[in-house]
């Protein structure tokens, strides 16, 4: 465990805890975007440049902004304050324990091969060519799905002329 990993880990855990504990939803989103940045830093530290930078671009640049916009447009003028504990905290706790135990079981059941030699970092070019050759069908399918979602969103958001008349 290197020092940089420790710093990043503390940052991620701390900001996630803050995102759950803070009462102002905007603060929650802002601390959550620190988490996103921390995860990106983790990817960068592992030599996955493309994934790390895409993480920042998508999550900080788009997802956090979207969340912020949604909160801003829906909350009242005085600002909405969240309670730290929700009413169904017990259900949430059970779900969290279940997810954690499944993840823990999955990790622990893997044969630990010790610390293997560092994998040579994958270049963007390799990712691109494997997307275009090996995984071209999944890529196209995801593209189709996203296009359908986009059209759906526009249809929902579109003004309906006949309703107003």
């Amino acid at each position, binding site marked *: 465990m290197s020092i940089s990993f420790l710093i990043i880990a503390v940052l991620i855990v701390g900001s996630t805890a803050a995102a759950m504990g803070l009462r102002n939803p905007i603060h929650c989103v802002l601390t959550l975007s620190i988490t996103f940045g921390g995860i990106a830093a983790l990817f960068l530290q592992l030599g996955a*440049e493309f994934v790390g930078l895409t993480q*920042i*671009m998508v999550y*900080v640049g*788009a997802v956090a902004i979207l969340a912020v916009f949604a909160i801003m447009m829906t909350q009242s003028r005085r600002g909405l304050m969240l309670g730290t504990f929700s009413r169904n905290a017990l259900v949430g706790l059970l779900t969290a324990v279940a997810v954690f135990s499944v993840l823990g079981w999955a990790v622990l059941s893997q044969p630990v091969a010790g610390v293997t030699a560092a994998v040579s970092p994958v270049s*963007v070019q390799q990712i691109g060519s494997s997307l275009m050759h090996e995984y071209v069908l999944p890529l196209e399918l995801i593209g189709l799905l996203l296009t359908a979602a986009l059209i759906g969103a526009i249809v929902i958001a579109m003004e309906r002329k006949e309703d107003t008349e």
Partner: protein
Amino acid sequence: MTQTPDQVFVILKHWLLGYVPTSVHAIASAVLSILPLMVVFPLLFAITTLLERKGLGRIQNRLGPNRTGPMGLWQPLADGIKSLTKEDIVPFTADHIVHFLAPVLLVVAAFLAYAVLPVGRNMALVNLNAGVLFFFAVGSVVELAVFMAGWSSRSKYSMLGAMRAIAQMISYEVPLVLASVVVIMQAGSLSTVDIVERQATYTGIFPHWYVFTPWGFLGFILFMIAATAESNRSPFDLPEGESEIIAGYYIEYSGFKFALFFLGEYLGMFATSGIAITLFLGGWSAPLSVLTFIPSWAWFFLKLLTLICMFIWVRGTLPRLRMDQLMNFAWEFILPMALFNMVIAGLWRFMNPGAVRWFVCAFLILVPMFVLSALLKRKKKLQLRTYSFAE
């Protein structure tokens, strides 16, 4: 390759590193590379503020600042001292922590973008495998800083300004990225250093800059339009709109925090111009092979200053767009053209080099451009505007 004036800064750095014990070599090397960037670009900011005020003054038929020092040369210094000594006012209802962090985040993000900028031969701070992607990733953090500034001030004007700014930045980020994709397709690399090196070769005396190809020219124009919008400059300065919402998201900032916003905005503009130079204008390479005796870093900064002057000229010339015009322009014209440009860039790659390829691609770009603009023009009923409350 390694003429002394060209590599003078690299040589200087290595010479200085010779005096440093090897145990702290890595840190010293990083500091020696970062410090010049953090000195040179804010200095350029100071020069640009003066240049801009002088240039705008000329365009508007007045003199511009001329009271401090000879020809008003000390004006940036006076501005700096003024903003440092001003009272730092934070609104009573503001969210103090977020209010404080917003300008800091903006400036940090603006500075980070310089990490991948090759300002001269062997003079990029880091040669990232995904350098262009790094630039856009850092640029997307700016949006969050703008939101933080607008929201934490608890003012209607800041909020409106932030909403406008974010809507604009998100809309224009798409064409900005798509316009630069053509260069990545041609260069086959996301590394800014590689992209410049591909362009720094010559046929006869002419360089292989991407701006000299049809798709590169269109890409450059689209990129510069999107970059203007991205840096919230006139004619896309609705987020600031002095006559409508006073100063937008940084209205509640005073003193040095306001100066930081100002700095961050200009640093962002320089960085985007720098990336435009890197992608389309051949980075540090000389425009003619006979001019390579002039150092590479001098070429970079000459090009940067040219683009800055262009920005000032545009600001002094064009009126501000309306919000719907701004959005329609991005989504209906720039985005389709950027997508089409990618197809042309692909075609260019698979055609034989020569004049035929150039003219075929140029023709294929011009035709859809005119068709698209004619279609868009027909959709809008152009007529004299009637005012409800004026006249």
